């Protein structure tokens, strides 16, 4: 447990992805089974423990600490788990307990899983007596179910893959057939065992991803070799159904089926499909913000199921029955998909249509005319390409519609993290109201070069009018041309608007702040 605690602690303080990867890889390499497997499970949300409520923690600490001192301490620290971990008194009276070795993560998981709800407080208190402050913090984070150390499932899997010569896609390929503490997985990646057989379960197949189409690339491409389809503005998903099991995976292989029971109920077939998850009402795709309301929920009420019905627009078929189709060319797979679809007529699904075209200028014109809210742009797929995992070069291209732009005024700048911690690199910008007041409309932290970042940093430091901790307020004197993919109504922002994917398109050193855009310009883009 102490080793796991040190890992969590270090992860919480390490901002960079590579730094986190190194910490995880070292941990998985240095710790034995099953300890490392439970750590992996804890970080990927794979442990289901009878969770302890904050009220239980408060009750435990009230038995040992003066409540007045605890209240003042909690006010200062601001986090219940951390306050408790720091304030927990060393158990002088229970010497044998203090001298007992601290529990391993595996012991904690095993005992908590076996315990009844009434036994949990005593178990937790006993461990708090045996652990050091960092160990206590990690234990409390584990039992209250919120790690929040900035590790995605993908980073954790990448670290496991890094133990051997295995690509992360191969780990994802077997992942859903495995259960914590993942001994066969570690054995396989370190060369000490065979590849675990994932066929039994409805598992995730790593998805094929695209590259953005760069300027001029079309000239070298022959229109006849490519199929085109709309890029729908939803969430890319994979459906995996074996008859017995029905799963809905996100692009990174996370099971998101729990939030979409209406869809999962209809997966009464044996196939693996690739498509776009959308909210569709009467055949019309709703804006992305409607889909957002369905995401990240543990349970969905009937009201939301009726008002925001989920739908999948199909792009591809990977497995039909027992047959793996990934080796076939796109055209052949498309034919299989259309046949499968007309045979099955699945509820809550339709086909993403192919767009007929013969020349690039023709397609360019179609793309320019596509302003429907639900279309992000076009996809170009090479007709001869098999379905490959990852982001292989030269097969699929995304050709997003041109972004919208507005000229905004820089209002606040905040220091970045990691390599950027000495730079003011996160920018809040605003637009003028009719009354001549500047209101913030968004925040951007990319879109500029390293040289431009240096210039922006210097400008911020020289034009600061106020400081709030890591944030500087600057005089309204610099215009940023902000590019974004869309704008929605938002109650969170003072301006009532929120942009999607805002980024700095150009720094308008030349433009006076007074000539930046006004709020109605952005409102008109809704």
């Amino acid at each position, binding site marked *: 447990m102490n080793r796991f605690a040190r890992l969590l602690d270090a992860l919480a*303080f390490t901002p960079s992805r590579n730094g986190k990867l190194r910490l995880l890889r*070292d941990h998985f390499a240095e710790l034995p089974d099953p300890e490392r497997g439970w750590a992996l499970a804890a970080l990927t949300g794979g442990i289901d423990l009878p969770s302890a409520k904050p009220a239980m923690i408060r009750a435990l600490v009230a038995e040992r600490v003066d409540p007045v001192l605890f209240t003042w301490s909690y006010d200062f620290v*601001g*986090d219940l788990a*951390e*306050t408790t971990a*720091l304030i927990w008194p060393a158990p002088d009276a229970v010497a044998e307990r203090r001298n007992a070795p601290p529990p391993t993560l595996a012991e904690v998981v095993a005992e908590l899983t076996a315990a009844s709800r009434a036994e949990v407080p005593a178990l937790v208190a006993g461990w708090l007596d045996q652990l050091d402050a960092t160990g206590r913090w990690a234990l409390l984070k584990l039992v209250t179910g919120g790690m929040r150390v900035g590790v995605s499932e993908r980073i954790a899997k990448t670290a496991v893959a890094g133990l051997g010569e295995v690509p992360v896609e191969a780990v994802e390929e077997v992942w859903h057939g495995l259960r914590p503490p993942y001994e066969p997985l570690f054995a396989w990646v370190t060369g000490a065992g065979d590849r675990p057989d994932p066929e039994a379960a409805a598992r995730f197949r790593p998805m094929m991803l695209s590259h953005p189409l760069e300027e001029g690339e079309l000239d070298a491409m022959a229109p006849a070799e490519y199929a085109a389809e709309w890029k729908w503005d939803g969430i890319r998903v994979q459906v995996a159904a074996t008859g017995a099991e029905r799963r809905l995976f996100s692009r990174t292989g996370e099971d998101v089926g729990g939030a979409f029971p209406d869809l999962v109920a209809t997966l009464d077939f044996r196939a693996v499909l690739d498509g776009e998850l959308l909210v569709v009402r009467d055949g019309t795709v709703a804006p992305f913000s409607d889909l957002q309301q369905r995401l990240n929920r543990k349970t969905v009420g009937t009201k939301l199921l009726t008002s925001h019905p989920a739908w999948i627009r199909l792009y591809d078929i990977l497995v039909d029955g027992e047959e793996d189709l990934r080796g076939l060319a796109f055209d052949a797979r498309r034919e299989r998909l259309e046949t499968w679809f007309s045979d099955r007529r699945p509820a809550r699904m339709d086909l993403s249509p192919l767009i007929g075209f013969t020349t690039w200028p023709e397609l360019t014109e179609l793309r320019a005319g596509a302003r429907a809210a639900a279309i992000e742009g076009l996809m170009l797929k090479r007709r001869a390409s098999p379905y490959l995992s990852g982001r292989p070069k030269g097969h699929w291209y995304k050709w997003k519609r041109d972004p919208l732009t507005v000229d905004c005024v820089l209002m606040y700048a905040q220091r970045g993290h990691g*390599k950027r*911690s*000495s730079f003011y690199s996160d920018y809040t910008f605003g637009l003028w109201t009719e009354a001549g007041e500047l209101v913030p409309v968004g925040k951007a932290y990319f879109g500029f070069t390293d040289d431009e970042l240096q210039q922006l940093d210097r400008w911020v430091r020289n034009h600061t009018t106020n400081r709030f901790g890591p944030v500087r307020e600057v005089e309204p004197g610099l215009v940023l041309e902000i590019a974004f993919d869309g704008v929605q109504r938002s109650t969170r922002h003072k301006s009532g608007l929120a942009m999607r994917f805002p980024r700095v398109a150009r720094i308008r050193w030349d433009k006076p702040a007074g000539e930046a855009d006004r709020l109605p310009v952005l409102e008109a883009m809704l």
Partner: protein
Amino acid sequence: MTQSVPAGRVRPEDWLMVRPEGLYCAPADLHVDPTRPVARAVVTHGHADHARAGHGQVLATAETLAIMASRYGAGFAGRTQALALGETLSLGDVRLRLAPAGHILGSAQAVLEHGGSRVVVSGDYKRRRDPTCPAFEPVPCDVFVTEATFGLPVFRHPDDAHEVARLLEQHRRNPDRTIVVGVYALGKCQRLLRLLREAGYDRPVHLHGALEGLTRLYGELGVEVGPVEPATMAARERLAGAIVLAPPSAIADRWARRLADPIVAMASGWMGVRQRARQRGVELPLVISDHADWDELLATLRDVGAPRVWVTHGREEALVHAARGMGIDARALALVGFEEEGS
């Protein structure tokens, strides 16, 4: 209930009081650590919130006087008088003695005796071992004036060696990166250098320019810190795999850009609280403090056995609350003399 005063004894609050310029001992015409210029001052240690320039006369340890001269120039006071630890000086009918405080080099507690009672003004102090200065000496007294910088029970500083081992572990795991540690220029810097040497780290440590003067002075005063080199002129490649010490203000700012992919560390008692560390952009928080933690504060109150405790500098209310729970008549120093009789 009115406090009873034995015959022939003067109450300490009648001869030691809080004035706008600092704690004032009237019968000796002496201020302790005044923040504005006064005629005569006893200075407990060289940190800027305790040691100011411009007093008529300064009484302090020879080390503290040397530190003040190095920071403010030779003419920082009209007159100076060095007092050795343990030496007693009579100022009218007040006796003044300095006792070691264990905070930084030269740090001392001011022990004041008058009218049959003894008051100890601790200044800043800690109880654990510090290789750069003698250990705190508990002096039994009637009134103990204590600091409370870390006066909350969430502050329990771990063993220094444990924190230095964490620093060296990061150093070992990251051979191509610079580890830059934020340290206060006076005390923390030199103590960390000594702790690194004790842990067996014998390579040169690179110092930010703002740390060089005081580190040299420590050497002249007999605190050897091993090989140090300036960080400011060194090439980026030379700083890969190096440990660099710098003032806290420099570690995450423009100065740090010269370093090779730095890991930002900070040595301070505040680093025990995660949010504090993250706010400063610290990746490697090291809990190394020159102030007493909560357990040391309470242990000190027990060791000096003073029936009355006045609390200043920090979280007065929590320490006052805990001391009262121990049966001590404790109050915030700022309130001494302002309370109603019998409160």
